């Protein structure tokens, strides 16, 4: 069931000047998977939104934390996780613990980064959010066309 993937993890200080650095890295990775220019631009925005949220969380709490960005590169998709707590995460474990994103349940998060979260939802194919010791945003983008089939598979929700 589990498909092979390449995993790349990036840890940056939770400071605004590193949002662009992370964005460029993700852009490069997405290009390796074979995404189109427009899809890559979408992903740059979506991942920046998640990382910006994480940075702002850290700022508000006066912490000098790190943001961890984990990217899993599959043949047909890219999965990006953004966590605002410095601990390096186990990609598979964290993936299991994130739940589907529900508009109404994310009141807090929405108020803070409302537009950003909306953009992630719009620009990516899937988004899941996990609150525990921090916030983890998990998002997926499928290579062109793939998402149609996948949507059909998961339509039961």
């Amino acid at each position: 069931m589990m498909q092979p993937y390449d995993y790349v993890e990036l840890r940056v200080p939770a400071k605004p000047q590193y949002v662009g650095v992370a964005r460029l890295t993700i852009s490069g990775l997405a290009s390796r998977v074979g995404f189109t220019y427009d899809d890559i631009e979408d992903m740059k925005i979506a991942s920046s939104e998640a990382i910006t949220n994480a940075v702002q969380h850290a700022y508000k709490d006066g912490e000098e934390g790190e943001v961890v960005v984990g990217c899993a590169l599959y043949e047909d998709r890219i999965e990006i996780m953004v966590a605002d707590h410095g601990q390096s995460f186990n990609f598979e474990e964290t993936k299991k613990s994130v739940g589907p994103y529900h508009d109404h349940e994310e009141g807090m998060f929405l108020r803070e980064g409302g537009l950003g979260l909306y953009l992630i939802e719009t620009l990516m194919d899937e988004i899941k959010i996990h609150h525990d010791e921090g916030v983890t945003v998990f998002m997926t983008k499928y290579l062109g066309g793939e998402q149609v089939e996948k949507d059909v598979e998961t339509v039961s929700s």
Partner: protein
Amino acid sequence: MNLQVDLREENSVQHFKVVGEIDAFTAPALRERLSDFASQQELQAEIDLSDVEYMDSTGLGVFVGFFKQVKENGGHVKITGLSNRLKRLFDITGLNEVMDIETQKDEGGLDDATV
């Protein structure tokens, strides 16, 4: 990956030319630059984004804030030179309905196709 804002006045209209990337790092400087003018009565402003290579919600937030404040003071903000990418951001957030925006001209007819 920096941001530059140039300003010139023409026929009582303030023309802002924004060049670079607008994100969490550069947005505060942009906000500050615009805020010097936002409280002017009946400000007429045009913001040219044709040389903005990247923008996300932090940029949208700055422009929405500026737009609101200028409007409250009886002025008007027009955003010009939007690439297809940037236009898309305004479209999917619904801000195109609220704000006065104009897409990039003379861009190989790509913009025409979306009319």
